[in-house]
């Protein structure tokens, strides 16, 4: 049986499940909202919730899509004791993730939340070109950077967030150009500043176990999407076409993914007017329906087939 760890609203999980049913691969799905209890029997672990119960030994493969395992914690209302129990539970959770990662898998919890700064350094170490970037927290340093090169600069969130949602307002924090520092205070929270790269087109690449499915996004000619394609123009969507990643770039991406210990993820790159390939980021739990549909890649089917292979069914 295949275990799927995901979140309740992930649409791609449902699409893959449709294909798993088609291929007759038995599966069990745990959403992060499902509260589960575990018990241990010799070398085995039993997972229980009101709607399912299974043993670790029942599992042949794991697909970590996103989310986390939400274990039930009974509290005593003695704060110190409950804090201690939380620490114990955390170690148990770690152990269970470790046991799950020993099964054939697509991604795992431990590596799902990558650090953009570390990924960029690692990408450079395998020979990928990345935008020159700086961490800046003073206006003096920012001005020095802006005056040092005859190029534009942009700022983006370190976490990769494009929006901060709340109940009544959305804070748009997509990549934006830095035009002036006139109103910038002397000191501010450490911020990521990058050379702004002119695009011929952007690439969104879905990577899984050394295979590539890529899409070119012609976002440069639209003012709405020129700086960040996630600032979608719904009235006139960007043109998206299938794209073959050159072998020498594929080799570097494989090296990067292996260094990061990731076997699946969505990679963003820019191709410059001079046809240079610039690596931006990798998101192990990124969406791929947006690549699958315009390019007819049937990625949900590919994922299901791969999960079937991993399960030896």
């Amino acid at each position, binding site marked *: 049986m295949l275990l799927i760890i995901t979140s309740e609203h992930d649409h791609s999980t449902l699409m893959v499940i449709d294909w798993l049913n088609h291929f007759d691969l038995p599966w069990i799905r745990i959403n992060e909202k499902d509260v589960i209890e575990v018990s241990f029997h010799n070398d085995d672990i039993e997972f229980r919730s009101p709607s*399912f119960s299974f043993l670790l030994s029942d599992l042949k493969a794991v697909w970590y899509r996103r989310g986390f395992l939400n274990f039930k914690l009974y509290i005593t209302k003695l704060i110190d004791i409950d804090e201690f129990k939380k620490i114990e539970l955390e170690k148990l959770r770690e152990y269970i993730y470790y046991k799950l990662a020993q099964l054939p898998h697509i991604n795992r919890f431990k590596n799902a939340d990558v650090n953009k700064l570390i990924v960029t350094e690692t990408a450079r170490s395998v020979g990928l070109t990345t935008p020159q970037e700086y961490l800046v927290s003073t206006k003096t340093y*920012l001005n020095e950077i802006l005056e040092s090169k005859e190029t534009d600069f942009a700022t983006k969130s370190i976490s990769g967030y494009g929006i901060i949602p*709340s*109940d*009544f*307002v959305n*804070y748009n924090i997509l990549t934006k150009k830095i035009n002036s520092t006139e109103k910038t205070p002397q000191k501010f929270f450490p911020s990521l500043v990058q050379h702004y790269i002119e695009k011929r087109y952007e690439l969104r690449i879905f990577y899984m176990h050394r295979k590539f499915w890529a899409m070119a996004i012609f976002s440069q000619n639209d003012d709405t999407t020129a700086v960040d394609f996630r600032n979608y123009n719904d009235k006139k969507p960007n043109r998206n076409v299938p794209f073959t990643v050159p072998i020498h770039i594929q080799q570097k991406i494989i090296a990067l993914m292996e260094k990061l210990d990731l076997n699946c993820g969505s990679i963003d790159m820019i191709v410059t007017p001079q046809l240079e390939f610039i690596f931006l980021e990798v998101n192990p739990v990124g969406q791929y329906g947006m690549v699958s549909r315009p390019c007819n890649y049937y990625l949900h089917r590919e994922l299901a087939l791969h999960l079937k292979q991993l399960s030896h069914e």
Partner: protein
Amino acid sequence: MSNGKTKKEIEDRLEKTKDILPLILHDAHITEIKKTATVTGKQISAPKYRTASISISNYLKHVTRFPHE
């Protein structure tokens, strides 16, 4: 409103606290979410949720869409 504050109050607050904000939040574009959608039509009940070897995607496909999908 967010945390009991209006859009204008949030913008003012962001302006006053620039020295502790990352650059991406300086002059950030804030949009108010207008909840204008009204529910029409007949209420239907969702199929019972199950977590093993049954898909509810065919149902969900008709009622919702998610970002990037």
